[in-house]
């Protein structure tokens, strides 16, 4: 099976997981959900690392890669930290 087809299998199955997991998220946490998905979509940082870290990468590719790493890191750090900050505010009634 060619690589692209394997990727397609993974993609379609992951879509099903996404569908079932996300419907289970409680509506009161929809804002943290958006922030958390912001953080994990920072996973494009892996692509950025691969472009930038390639030994043979030209200067243009390196500079593009640098900005991609920068933007994706803002997502990763900003996303997880702000999600944590929000979730810390959700408290039950103090007994």
């Amino acid at each position, binding site marked *: 099976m060619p*690589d*692209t087809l*394997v*990727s397609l299998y*993974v*993609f379609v199955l*992951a*879509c099903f997981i*996404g569908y079932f997991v*996300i419907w*289970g*998220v*409680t*509506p009161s*946490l*929809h*804002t*943290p959900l*958006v*922030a*958390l*998905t912001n*953080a*994990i*979509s920072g*996973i*494009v*940082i*892996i*692509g*950025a*690392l*691969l*472009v*930038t870290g*390639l030994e*043979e*990468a*030209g200067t243009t*590719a390196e500079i593009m890669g*640098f*900005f*991609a*790493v*920068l*933007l994706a*890191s803002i*997502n*990763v*750090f*900003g996303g*997880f930290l*702000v*999600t944590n900050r929000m*979730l810390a*505010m*959700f*408290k*039950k*009634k103090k007994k």
Partner: protein
Amino acid sequence: MEISANTQALAYLVAAILFILSLKGLTHPASARRGNFLGMIGMAIAIAATLAGHEVQSYGFIIAGVVAGAVIGGVLAARVQMTAMPQLVAALHSFVGMAAVLVAIGTFLNHSAAGTLNPVLMGELSAGIVIGAITFSGSVIAFGKLQGLISGAPVRFTGQHMLNAALGVVTIALAVHFAATGSMASLVIMTLLSFVIGFTLIIPIGGADMPVIISMLNSYSGWAAAATGFTLHNNLLIIVGALVGFSGAILSTIMCRAMNRSILNVVFGGFGSESGGGGASAGAVAADKGVKSASVEDAIYWMEDANRVIVVPGYGMAVAQAQHALKEMMELLEENGVEVKFAIHPVAGRMPGHMNVLLAEADIPYDHVFEMDEINPEFASTDVVLVVGANDVVNPAARTDQSSPIYGMPILEAGKAQHVYFLKRSMRPGYSGVDNLLFYQDNVSLIFGDAKDTIEGMVTTLKGGGH
């Protein structure tokens, strides 16, 4: 230390599982923080496994980028106001989009230098660039609208749909040409046109539809990550992209259902022009129309001895920053033995779940906050409903008036309570521009003024012992 490709693939699998569990954690507030931590661990494993792999050999730019990104992201996360969360989210979406575009072009340059380009790869690159660019410029426009840098009113002109369709067709043609020939010119024009499409796609959507826009762009940012995964044959990116893509798509669906509108209607409808309207002599206008206005004392008179009070907050509460005063009022009423609940309509606020976060910030326990379907049966047995800065979401016209633009939208049945008090600044209608039929009902009165001042007035009256 360098790890083998197989070890790296296994590490990615662990990361993927952690991300799924992380989202699963959001099923309940009690498990949500642990979920977020699992996500952090997953991300750390994914990044470490990539850096330790054989492909990454030079670290200078990477370290600089990560350190700068960590500082900027950390400061943004620590400083952002909860009311400004939609703007932060829009900005972060735009970053994912731009990063996807940069990664795709960088990958093209690297493969081009190594002579390893092929049509499938270039097709995948095109998808990454197009989706990434649309996500970027669309999110920039959404950010501008939310931040008030550009008007929230829908921008429409004749031939808009034709223009969008034409742009789309040309972009696809360029992508095909690029995949077939590797033409640099096609790549550049395709990229630029995709930025234009993001702009023309979001600019006609009104400010009132922000929850849908945010959800849609959330979805796009996921698909952009998935497309990047296809280009790099990286299954982790594909899995995460699919999870995020679906998350945004499901949120969009929930938001649309809550307005009884189709996603196509939101994208192409140009609904929700933010109408002006005079706030001058609100009381006089109200009296003309047969609307009763009430004082803080009137409301407290019924609230003090009530069994149950339900608060319906809307974005107006956030604008007035009234949530902290509401919390104080809640505590005083509870001391009197009154049960206080909060009722949240799915589209209240500027993004999904926005109201819940604002109430949580004010230390209002989440077990006092209820979704529409949970609380609707309780209104009929409720003594007092306080509507704070909300309007359309309680308008019975959605039930009864077939000609109303909001007809069919599920509403909070506030009107069934014994007494309903609207805290309003003026007689201005809600975002839909529709008059609220509830105002003319016998059990409903309006308390004019700033919501925060009004609630602080209630707190003072309650403390004073009142009656």
